[in-house]
């Protein structure tokens, strides 16, 4: 076994026109905010500072929403002793966006220890956002001790199984998946047979031109299996989405931005609003990364997503809190 797979995200062998240099350029901007736009299979990146000068109408599109992730309410260790404060800063950032988002996706780890008061606190802070509707999927920190019972009671109304669901907005089909339950020793995230069957059925009748957005906590691509940063049965899930011309996969869990484009699928992970984690393999473990206080907000952030009808894919913009 070669140790090379650690770097697999840095290489693209899919013949989709995204070379290593282009990807790295995109990554390099991530820390300061970046806009990655896919147009006709070509990845274009702009720094956040330029966005004001770029044609705002082109960016806005018909649908704009925001992804936030990994709030870890209740965490109070040195990496960030004030996760409520940084979540509020994320809300301020959302409220300051040029295009007000229609809704938010929260890709899990809402709480740190699944405590009711932690969920309450997040709910209360997010009520301050201009976008009133929040679509959640659970992280492993939200389903501690009770296999997700409390999570389902709070956020699972109208969902299937352990909390998965789909909805449509302006012609885009959204699928919220759960891959943090029934984890097996030594394994990665898991969707499970029942959820996969539901997925297959859910997309069966959709036209292949329907843009698809899939969101789940643990990455649905192999970011770094050594740290559990991947999902065992994601290949099966993606197989059901093969016919679609535009698939955007939004994940959290790894507390840093990463992007990979594979055919018609764009994979993207969001920053946390609570604390950063090290780059794959760059530390002994994936534990919280401690950074100087004045740098903390530059490694936390939100992700803005725009969909322009007729365009090949969605535009995904990462914006740090400070």
């Amino acid at each position: 076994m070669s140790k090379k797979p650690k770097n697999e995200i840095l290489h693209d062998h899919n013949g989709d026109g995204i070379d290593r240099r282009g990807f790295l350029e995109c990554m390099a901007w991530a820390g300061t905010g970046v806009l990655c736009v896919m147009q006709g299979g070509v990845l274009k990146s702009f720094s956040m500072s330029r966005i004001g000068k770029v044609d705002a109408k082109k960016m806005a599109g018909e649908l704009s929403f925001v992804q936030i992730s990994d709030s870890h309410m209740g965490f109070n260790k040195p990496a960030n002793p004030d996760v409520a404060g940084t979540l509020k800063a994320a809300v301020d950032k959302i409220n300051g966006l040029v295009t007000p988002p229609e809704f938010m996706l929260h890709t899990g780890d809402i709480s740190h220890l699944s405590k009711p008061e932690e969920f309450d606190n997040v709910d209360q802070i997010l009520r301050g956002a201009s976008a009133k509707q929040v679509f959640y999927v659970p992280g492993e920190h939200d389903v501690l001790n009770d296999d997700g019972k409390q999570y389902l009671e709070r956020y699972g109304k109208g969902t299937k199984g352990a909390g998965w669901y789909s909805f449509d907005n302006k012609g885009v089909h959204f699928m919220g998946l759960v891959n943090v339950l029934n984890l097996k020793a030594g394994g990665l995230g898991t969707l499970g047979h029942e959820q996969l069957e539901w997925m297959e059925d859910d997309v069966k009748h959709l036209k292949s031109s329907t843009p698809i957005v899939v969101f789940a906590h643990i990455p649905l691509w192999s970011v770094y299996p050594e740290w559990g940063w991947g999902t065992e049965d994601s290949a099966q899930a993606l197989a059901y989405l093969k016919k679609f011309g535009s698939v955007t996969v939004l994940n959290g869990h790894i507390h840093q931005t990463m992007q990979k484009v594979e055919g018609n699928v764009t994979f993207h992970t969001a920053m946390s609003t609570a604390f950063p984690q090290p780059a794959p393999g760059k530390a002994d473990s994936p534990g919280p990364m401690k950074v100087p206080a004045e740098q903390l907000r530059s490694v936390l952030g939100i992700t803005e997503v725009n969909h322009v009808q007729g365009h090949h894919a969605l535009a995904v913009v990462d914006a740090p809190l400070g």
Partner: protein
Amino acid sequence: MMKGRRVWIAGLAAAMIAMVLLSAGSPNGAANTQQAAPATVEVKIDNFSFGPATVTVAVGTTVTWINRDDIPHTVVSTDDPKAFKSKVLDTDEKFSYTFAKPGTYPYFCSVHPKMTGTVVVK
């Protein structure tokens, strides 16, 4: 490391026997030798791993896991049905389980399943 512990336990047992012999006149002496001091073994959770990953203990030993990470973990038996299952352990929290029967007990952290360990009870 395990050898050292066994030697230590053996030493402890010898010391106890000596004490019992010294107090041979006491009517409870015989009963005390039957209830050898309960052994305890500690497994530290640090850097997303169990240390040591494998511990070998005598029947009746209590294993205590202590979380020294700044992220919560769990200690959950891999067997079906589960031999033991901790609640989530935040930093510095502990979980103990006493192994009454011989066997091999694999376990993992159900939050971070890449973290695995084994308790061998002889």
